[in-house]
């Protein structure tokens, strides 16, 4: 059987530098896949030797998309090292920033990063505005901006654009591809929302900035709390936050969720064919206490789609391997071990120990795991979280799908939309809690400590559920300086390379078996990869060869067995 290798680089509409290489048989069915992170920066190396209090500002720069996630995780890991217990207000403000980011990220992902894999811009031009308006009513009783006039305006706008021959960012899409299945009217609805979502994400970023000073890269989290106390005590700022989130909720309920339903119904065949399904191992750490002892998400581990048996998350089961990533664990001084590409620029994958990515290989109990909104939703739902249950059940009922169907390319988007709707509902409880605290004169935002008197040697860790899944930071402090630093980001889990075990990560596993109609236009590959919302700057992290020093964390390398 002859196979053909397709190289896709750059994968656009993601954060960072991702390459995918797939080997297809004569029918275009993917037999093997390799995904590779193509940029190494070495943020952990840069963190070494610095004051632990500076970790947040620096580690925040790991990613400008998951912008406050790393900032918070770094500060939290240092707080964990020093056993600092944060004032409730500080936790809430951090959560409010995080939750606004969830919504912002998910909406940007669905429309700006992913929708063109399903929506054909050129087809939308054939749409009838009146029919589009009617179509939208099938997915919500009060669709977002659904007047005929509005759709006419969108048609005109996009039409002018195409007529002028200036497609700008729409240039060279796979327009007209047979895999595009939406009707012209459905395409028009989604393009209308694409444009509205551009405004939406600008607006909701203000919610993050209210408490963060700015976004991307907010600047208000410090070891021991948050700095934006004056904003917290300003009723107008709280009010602004509430109103922005109220508007966001409108958009999520009336545009995003209905569009996710539309997509699920239109691409039902793909869903039922299980396209984009990975190995069914899911990991979630949960979090977001919106009421005393009540958390938005549960922690848990699912193996092989067995939703009946959920294991508790056990951090000691995490290990990291590097034998097919461009690192070497033999000596601490020689951490990077770049073995280059082939002459023609393709990845070296011929031998099963060829290194081919800057992404290291995290394993949970020796297995590759999928993390992200799909994992979060499945774990919380399966653990009987009644709050999220109604959101999931309603979505599945309206689209006539089952829980397993979410574990597909299109299903990942549905899970993300469900998660967004769920967060929009409960974010207001969190604000109420903050208001309640202030009402009873609890205005603390920082826990006092004297840095000079803190222990000089300490280890800390932070596990956070962030928009793309489970994020963990580990810090090892010696003589009051950072001795070692390590990060496992959601994309590290999902985009992991193979290992000596030959196990495929979620990206690779989901790619294997899909059929590519036109190998010069590998739209199907983009769909699968985009459904994970890749974030490569987050994913690439150097592994520490002497990693046993990281607290109780056993981050094993191949060479330690």
């Amino acid at each position, binding site marked *: 059987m002859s196979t053909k290798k397709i190289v896709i680089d750059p994968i656009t509409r993601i954060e960072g530098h991702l390459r995918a290489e797939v080997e297809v048989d004569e029918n275009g069915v993917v037999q093997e896949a390799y995904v590779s992170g193509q940029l190494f920066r*070495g943020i952990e190396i*840069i963190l070494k030797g610095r004051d632990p209090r500076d970790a947040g500002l*620096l580690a925040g720069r790991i990613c400008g998309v998951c912008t406050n996630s790393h900032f918070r995780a770094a500060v939290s890991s240092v707080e964990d090292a020093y056993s600092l217990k944060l004032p409730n207000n500080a936790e809430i403000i951090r959560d409010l920033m995080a939750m606004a980011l969830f919504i912002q990220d998910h909406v940007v992902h669905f429309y700006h990063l992913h929708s063109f894999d399903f929506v054909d811009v050129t087809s939308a031009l054939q749409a009838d505005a009146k029919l589009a308006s009617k179509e939208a009513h099938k997915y919500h009783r009060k669709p977002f901006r659904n007047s005929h006039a509005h759709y006419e305006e969108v048609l005109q706008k996009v039409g002018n654009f195409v007529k002028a021959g200036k497609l700008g*960012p729409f240039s060279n899409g796979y327009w007209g591809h047979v895999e595009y299945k939406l009707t012209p009217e459905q395409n028009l609805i989604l393009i209308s929302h694409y444009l509205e979502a551009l405004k939406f994400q600008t607006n909701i970023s203000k919610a993050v900035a209210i*408490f963060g*000073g700015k976004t991307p890269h907010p*600047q208000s989290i410090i070891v021991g709390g948050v700095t934006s106390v004056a904003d917290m005590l300003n009723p107008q700022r709280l009010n602004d936050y509430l109103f922005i989130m109220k508007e966001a909720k409108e958009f999520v309920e009336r545009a995003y969720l209905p569009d996710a339903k539309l997509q699920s119904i239109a691409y039902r065949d793909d869903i039922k064919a299980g396209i984009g399904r990975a190995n069914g191992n899911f990991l979630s750490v949960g979090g977001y206490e919106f009421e005393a002892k009540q958390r938005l998400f549960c922690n848990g581990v699912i193996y092989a789609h067995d939703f009946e048996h959920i294991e508790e998350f056990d951090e000691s089961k995490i290990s990291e391997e590097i034998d097919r990533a461009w690192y070497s664990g033999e000596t601490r001084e020689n951490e990077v071990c770049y073995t280059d590409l082939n002459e023609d*620029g393709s990845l070296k994958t011929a031998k099963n120990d060829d290194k081919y990515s800057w992404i290291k290989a995290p394993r949970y109990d020796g297995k590759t795991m999928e993390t992200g909104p799909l994992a979060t939703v499945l774990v919380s739902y399966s653990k009987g979280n009644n709050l999220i249950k109604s959101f999931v059940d309603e979505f599945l009922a309206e689209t006539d799908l089952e829980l397993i169907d979410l574990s597909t390319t299109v299903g990942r988007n549905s899970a993300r939309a469900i998660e967004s709707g769920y967060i929009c509902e409960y974010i207001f409880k969190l604000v109420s809690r903050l208001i309640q605290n202030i009402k009873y004169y609890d205005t603390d*935002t920082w826990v006092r400590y004297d840095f000079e008197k803190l222990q000089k040697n300490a280890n800390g860790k932070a596990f956070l559920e962030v928009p793309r899944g489970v994020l963990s930071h580990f810090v090892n402090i010696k003589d009051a300086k950072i001795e070692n630093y390590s990060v496992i980001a959601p994309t590290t889990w999902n985009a992991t390379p193979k290992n000596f075990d030959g196990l495929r990560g979620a990206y690779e596993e989901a790619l294997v078996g899909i059929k590519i109609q036109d190998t010069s236009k590998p739209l199907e590959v*983009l769909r699968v990869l985009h459904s994970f919302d890749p974030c490569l700057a987050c994913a690439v992290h150097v592994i520490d060869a002497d990693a046993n020093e990281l607290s109780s964390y056993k981050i094993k390398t191949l060479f330690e067995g």
Partner: protein
Amino acid sequence: MRIVIVGGGIVAVYLANNLKKQNAALDVTILSDEKHPPYDRIHLCSLVDNTQEIDEISLPLDPTIRLELNQKINKIDKESKRVFSDNSMFSYDKLIIATGSMPISLFDISHIKNATVFRSADDCDLIKIGVQGREVVIVGSGPIGLELLETLNEMPNVVHITLLLRGNHLYAKELSMDSIKTIEECYTKEGKIRISYEDEIVDKTIENSEIISLQTKKFQIKNPFLIFGVGIKPNIEEFRESLACANGILTNRFMQTEDEDIYAVGECAEVKELGFVAGHVKECTTQANCAISHILQTDVKEFELEVSIDMLKVGEFDLVEVNSPKFSSDYEKVLITSKEDKRIDEYFVNDDKLTRFIGINSNVDVGYIESLINDGDALDINYLYQNRLIGERGRLICSCEHVYHQDLVDIVTQTGIGSFGELASFSEAGRVCGRCKTMVQDVIRDSQHLIDPNMPRKSPQDIKKEREMAEVTKRIDKFNALHPRNNLTTDNLESALASLEIGKHEVNSWISMVTADMKLHPNFEKLVEKGVKTLNKVPIVWLELSDCSGNSEAFIKSANPAIEDLIFDYISLDYHELLMSASGDMSETILEDIIKNQKGEYILIVEGAVPLAMDGKYLRIGPKGETGIELLKKCAKDAVLVIAVGSCAFDGGVVAAAPNPTGAVGVGDALNRKDVINIPGCPTNPINIVGTLLSYIMFEELPPLDKLNRPLWAYEGRIHDNCERRGHYELGEFVKEWGDAGAKKGYCLFEMGCKGPYANANCPTMKFNGGTSWPVQAGHGCMGCVEQNFFDKFANERKYVEEEK
């Protein structure tokens, strides 16, 4: 609101006019006990010598103000909020007492025909007639007394004047003997005036309500006309019963008395906290402003003691005095005198600081003296000596408004005004206390010949606009040089701009903002808009290298214009990996196409550092696995302009922070080019990207850059200088620990390691996310992310010390 003002002097008029100016709907009434409408007492001398009639010195009054004359108020009913005169009753919501002061006489002169004080127009009438054929005796030598002395000295029908002084000084006891002699000479050289020091009236003979003779310690004076100029006291007898009084009616610093609806302003009031009773017009008007601000609750101000300036111009000499509240009698004095010029500068020093200045025929810049006293700077005798002969702006004319001779001449020559009345639109000189009015008139008259007869008359708005247009003209010349066919001039600018296409409303507000931020005249707005539309035709390639996409994320959050307008209507974002539909080969095709077919036309924006170690292989892009540096060089080669956005593209940023594991550098260094525009920031504010693009499109050259190639329009101002918390810094109000009381109040973050003093950018004015906030507002402080090596230097929460490591 009904506001009743009791008093008929300059303060009452000032209060009434300014209340009306701030709120035309107010019902304002003035109750004066005089028979004349309010007039300017400063000019009483001109009534004495008949150079002016009473109506010539009357004070301008807003016609909607109700003026009641001959109303001597003798009772206040605070309960029902009414005041009473002998024949009328007036209701008020707010009452302001501005009855000023009354002159002191050494014995009761109310029934004596040939004795008077010098305070009112009626007194002038008495003096005018009474002095004829009599020996005039003036007791006291305060400023007004000296002016009257001068006036009488000039009057031919006054034969002889005796000035009786209890002490041995003129004007003020602190004056040096030289000064006193100089003043004395001016008065006595004609022989009409004799000055008798250490003298006083010891006896008098009165017949038929007329003083027949006066016996002083030294002289016997027959048939005298006696004028008391010995001082004043607050005119408050009628209010002592109803309001708490000490020397004057006691008030707080808002000039409010113990009754919250009653205020007292001017010489009748005593600010309790300061034990202060006003003596100068400027102090009275300052108090009036405080009272008005408090009554109307707009921009409320408290009364503060301030440096006062007094001037006296009598015949051959002029005198100027600058006096600080800090002056005390244990002073030392520095004198610079010239016998030749009759010039004496007296500097009074307390605790090494200048606290008072009196100059006779002085040339020194009074404004400088005032700032010296205000700032408490050390006295620089050298400077004062060097400038003793002539100040740059000439003599001070108006001490209230600080207007100098040259300032007035400039106004005259620039605007072509010909009268005092016309001056009003340009300057308040001569209008506050009015003392210098004639001098102002003289300057206007004497400088008429300097006016260019061909110059068209201009309004104040014209002048202001003209100054701005001069700046615009400079830019238009530049524009014309680059676009010869446009041929814009200041004459056709309006119509030329009007003919340009006008965009949508939403865009307009943004354009105004950018125009203002780029320090362009508002007339340029439409040109900016044209620039925006031109931008749409310039292809833009946005490369991401060793980055975190933070700048791309920031860019798509551009609030004004909305990102959708920006990427669909205004710029042609042809290659941007975060947004573009195409991937893999298809995206490479786009890039190849632009690079090959649009040489010298496209703009390259680069985000991220350039890793150079390991032959650049820490970053590889595209199906062929090009390294970051290879791709950058390829794209930059034929770009018309390369812009490095964000701190990583600027100097490697976080990626190049120690120990710089991937050998990362900024774009300029990687390309070894000096013409790369840097727009640093972590991430940079999207408005700075768009603004810089516009600037380039409009002016077709690099915008003015600093030495690190950052556009000055965005990176010129120091963050500390424009910071909203700067006031707290000045007051020494600092956040001392996170979340403390100061943090809750928004105090200065310097002690918490804010790097605003070391960073230059427009963050304080532009803010982020559509003006929502910025790191200082969020209580963290600046981390200097627009500066070089900031991760190794500034990115922490500790105070910056030069050699931290």
